[in-house]
């Protein structure tokens, strides 16, 4: 059984999707979706915790390089575990607001959601370049659908925008893969990395990499290619935005790491192509511009969305260092941010369900009325800032050490300075919640109390993010192993 875990992770959600449509039962569809995600998560966690080296799973028993190979290394298992868990949290215990978003379209919604999960998981576990594209498209198409299901009409515009840019990105990726195939004659990751050495000097290889990098850059929302993100995150149904915030960009980041490390090789990408010099300034701009924009956003979800753009900057910065320590920091931050941002989006969803819209002003003085939700937001926000005692600090610390080891203390200073912007936008919300009188002319709250479904998942995630901030050995050590195996394998 356990050797089939890699394919199970993908297969369960993938097969559950049509099941949901066939059953056509609102409640059952939710239960099925939940179960599917949970199963997938179980598989991912089991794999992640029991593996001792990279797992290769030949699909249909065909040898790799001939058949399609699923290949899960430590980092992949780590990302898969995060993605599936967050999917479970986002869908299973989704808030009432989440459910209301999609009244009447539940089957399609859950089916699309499952497809999306399957696509993302597939991207993580596949060891084959073309399958990356296939799963990318599966996840992307379902995401467009999900975003379009948003309550407001602007959701359609956002979805269209996302569709356009996502397709552009997908196309670039496809072109990149095509060129890579042309040069190496294979799509298998291991084989590509072995053969790419011979063609490294050729212009076509460079172009292949450029297309892949830019294509993934769009999907990853690297500044200035992030334009789809705020709309998509803020207009999608709550469950979707929570899920996307924690997973979509993370998986793409993982893909970028694989392209750099597994396919093309660190030495080639950084020494020959100088990719680091290209990525670093963009990361820095993203860190500052994203956070600055977040400060001025009038709506809670847009604030969080722009904050994500800033956080992506940290991720790419870590990658741009081109060192194992950098990779380690990037992977850690991937996890930390996934947990934190999902929690924050879930809390935002709960708040919005209570007050009816997502303008920040509407939250005035709600800190007393919803103490737990507000406390959760504060703690999540602290993790976002990187205050010690939260998981955000652990990853930021790793990033700092990586940067310092690279001999660039000024970069460390810039990282910290941009954290200050996070302080500003987080405490903007805190101030509204706690230190403002409730709006005089506010319409009555939708409900007096937040239902447990809205805060329990968020609360759990917040607890995780705080707990891992103090007991950080587990993630730190695991990620260190992952980074080492990835990086060591690349040398």
């Amino acid at each position, binding site marked *: 059984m356990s050797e089939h875990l890699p394919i199970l992770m993908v297969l369960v959600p993938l097969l559950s999707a049509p099941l949901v449509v066939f059953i056509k039962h609102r409640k059952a569809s939710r239960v099925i979706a939940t179960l599917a995600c949970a199963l997938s998560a179980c598989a991912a966690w089991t794999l992640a915790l029991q593996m001792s080296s990279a797992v290769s799973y030949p699909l249909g028993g065909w040898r790799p390089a001939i058949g399609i190979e699923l290949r899960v290394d430590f980092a992949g298992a780590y990302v898969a575990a995060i993605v599936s868990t967050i999917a479970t949290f986002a869908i299973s215990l989704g808030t009432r607001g989440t459910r209301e978003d999609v009244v009447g379209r539940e089957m399609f919604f859950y089916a699309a959601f499952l497809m999306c999960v399957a696509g993302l998981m597939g991207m993580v576990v596949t060891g084959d370049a073309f399958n990356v594209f296939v799963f990318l498209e599966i996840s992307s198409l379902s995401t467009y659908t999900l975003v379009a299901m948003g309550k407001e009409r602007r959701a359609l515009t956002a979805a269209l925008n996302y569709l356009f840019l996502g397709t552009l990105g997908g196309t670039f990726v496809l072109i990149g893969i095509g060129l890579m195939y042309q040069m190496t004659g294979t799509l298998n990751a291991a084989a590509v990395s072995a053969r790419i050495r011979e063609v490294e000097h050729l*212009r076509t290889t460079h172009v292949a990499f450029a297309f892949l990098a830019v294509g993934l850059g769009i999907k990853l929302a690297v500044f200035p*290619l992030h334009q789809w993100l705020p709309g998509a995150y803020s207009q999608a149904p709550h469950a979707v935005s929570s899920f996307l915030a924690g997973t979509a960009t993370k998986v793409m980041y993982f893909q970028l790491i694989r392209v750099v490390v597994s396919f093309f090789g660190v*030495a080639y990408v950084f020494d020959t192509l*100088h990719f680091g010099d290209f990525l670093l300034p963009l990361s820095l701009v993203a860190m500052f511009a994203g956070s*600055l924009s977040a400060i001025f956003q009038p709506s809670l979800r847009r604030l969080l969305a*722009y904050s994500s753009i800033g956080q992506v900057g940290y991720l790419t910065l870590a990658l741009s260092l081109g060192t194992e320590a950098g990779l380690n920091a990037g992977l850690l931050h991937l996890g930390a941010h996934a947990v934190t941002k999902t929690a924050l989006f879930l809390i935002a969803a709960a708040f919005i369900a209570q007050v009816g819209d997502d303008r920040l002003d509407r939250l005035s003085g709600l800190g007393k009325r919803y103490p737990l939700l507000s406390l959760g937001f504060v703690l999540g926000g602290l993790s976002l800032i990187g205050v010690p005692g939260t998981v955000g600090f652990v990853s930021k610390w790793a990033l700092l050490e990586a940067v310092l080891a690279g001999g660039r203390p000024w970069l460390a200073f810039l990282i910290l300075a941009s954290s200050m912007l996070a302080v500003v936008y987080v405490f903007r919300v805190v101030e509204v919640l706690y230190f403002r009188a409730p709006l005089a002319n506010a319409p009555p709250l939708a409900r007096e109390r937040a239902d447990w479904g809205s805060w329990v998942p968020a609360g759990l995630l917040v607890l995780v993010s705080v707990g891992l901030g103090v007991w950080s050995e587990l993630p730190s050590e695991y990620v260190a192993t992952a980074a080492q195996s990835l990086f060591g394998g690349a040398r």
Partner: protein
Amino acid sequence: MNALTQLFPGALMILGACFVPLFRGRARSAYVLALPLLSAAHLALFSLGHQGSATLFGYTLELVRVDALSRIFGVIFHIAAFLCCLYAFHVKRPLEHVATLVYAGAAIGATFAGDLLTLFVFWELTALSSVFLILARGLDEPERRERVFRVSMRYLVIQVGSGVLLLAGTLLYYQGTRSLHFGRMNLEESPGALFIFLAFGIKAAFPLLHNWVQDAYPEASVSGTVVLASFTTKLAIYALARGFAGTDVLIPIGACMTAFPIFFAVLENDLRRVLAYSLNNQLGYMVVGIGVGTELAINGAAAHAFAHILYKGLLLMSMGAVLYRTGTIKASELGGLHKSMPLTTAFCIIGALSISAFPGLSGFVTKSMIVSAVGEAHLLVIFGVLLFASAGVCDHSGIKIPFFTFFAHDQGWKVQEAPKHMLLAMGLAAALCIGIGVFPSALYALLPFPEAAAQYHAYETTHVLTMLQLLFFAGLAFITLVRLGVYPPELPAINLDTDYFYRRPLKRFVVESYALASWVRERTWGMALGLRGRALASLRRNHEPPRGRLGEPWTAGATTLFAALMLFTLLLLTSSAGCGGGEDAEANDARLLLDRVGAIEGVPEQAFEARMERVEVLRRLPLRGESLIAVREACAEMHGALLEADVQNALIHSIGAPDEDTPAEELARLERAFTAAEAAAARVVVHRDACVDGTATLRARYAPDRRGSE
């Protein structure tokens, strides 16, 4: 007994002072009077040579040191404390009693302090407690409040300033000598001593540092002035005598002190301020004595301080009584009071004669010691100055004070005689003045060098005669000048002294500086706020939706454009990497090569397949540069040879080991195969060596990969 000597002398007064507010009315006054007596009894418990020590932060402190020098000051301070308390019997408010007792106690404590740190503590305590005596006047006279307050602040700053100088000096002294012992110090030996000297100098009212005396003392309450005049400056004299006896520079300083204030004393209208100047002048004698430093001189200084406290107290008491009864102490408003206050007048005259050193009174028997000491040291100029000053004292304290207060032109004051307790206090002081004047030997026995004192005879005919001449002719001069109308009239005015510098230019400087600072601050704040506002506005413009372009999604077209741009940039970067020639490219390729070589080296010999695969990779590396190509060629050759060897080996293996049945042709094949394999192996070795050599050269030329270590 033993427990009591654990306390320092004066402690009873300080501790007792805390309970003064608990008593009411006469009981309080009686209690206050009893404390100095108790404390005096306490002092009597200490034998000469007693030393009490304590430790603090690892330093050994000498809390109590009783010797002849400290004892005489301790004794007179107790007498003064008692007289002051008696004089202040009428004061209802506990504040002044408490302040007096703490002040006196601290002064006594300081006198017996054996180390600099303890001295500092008491030194500051005298400053702190005494300021309340000045402030107290504000309570009685609301209209003077603001003025008194400012005076007291100036006083406090200067007094504490002396304290911090002492502290600084102590620190530096300790730095230099690793000792806190308060003994004879040498000005040249450490900068600390200089600081300490200055600290003492402030309290002893050295010229130019003197002004606080004239500023503060006349502003204190009726009894307060008496108290103030008794302790602080004499404590400083004691400290100088202890620390700087025989320091030459004190002689001119002291001479200056005797002469310089008398000019102001002549002009001054406020009679208590006249006495303050006169105080300064008297201190000058003592300072000169300390400067001369012979046994006689030190004796003289100590004795003069002793006598001085009494007669200066007496004079101030009489002036206080006048102030108490009339409400003014300005010479221009007083006169003719001898009719209504005859006893006060008498006491005042005794005091005046004492200070003028009239034979038979205390001033004569003490001052003459100093003058004699100066004479014995043959300091002609100083001697002359002291004579001149004696004539001056005769004027402002001996004649001017009693004359303008009690005689002169009758201003029509109809007031009562001073209260009884004041009279009693004055009477006691006057009696002591006379007593000392008549029986100097009692005082002489207390002096630091009693043997030297015993040999000194004040009442020597020449001395008495010359002193009388001096005084009477001075008086004659006064009469003459008054008769001629030349004597300067008493005018309601003030005279500028050194305090001008800190009360006008310095104050102006401070005010201007603050104004300038606040102007600069305002400007910079304005600019900073403007900048901040502009920065914020610009951030808002760029980031705040819906107008801010960065805070609002762009069109898909824009993003596409960016994507294209990025692609272009990335290609530009990579193409420069891929197609660039020259050293850089070669270095890159070298690294690439070395990298791969490293990969081979990592694979064990037995893993032939893997090794082959990597060598194959190496063979196909795209390389530029001759040496690189040479390595690659060697590699390729080696690859070929390896393959050849492999093939031959396989052949040998397939034939198997030869035996008797083996056909001849087979054997020949085997032999050929062996030969070929050997040749191939040899080629492998040759090319491998070439490869290794080339690699080594490359390694040396191109630094190892920067990520190699991770």
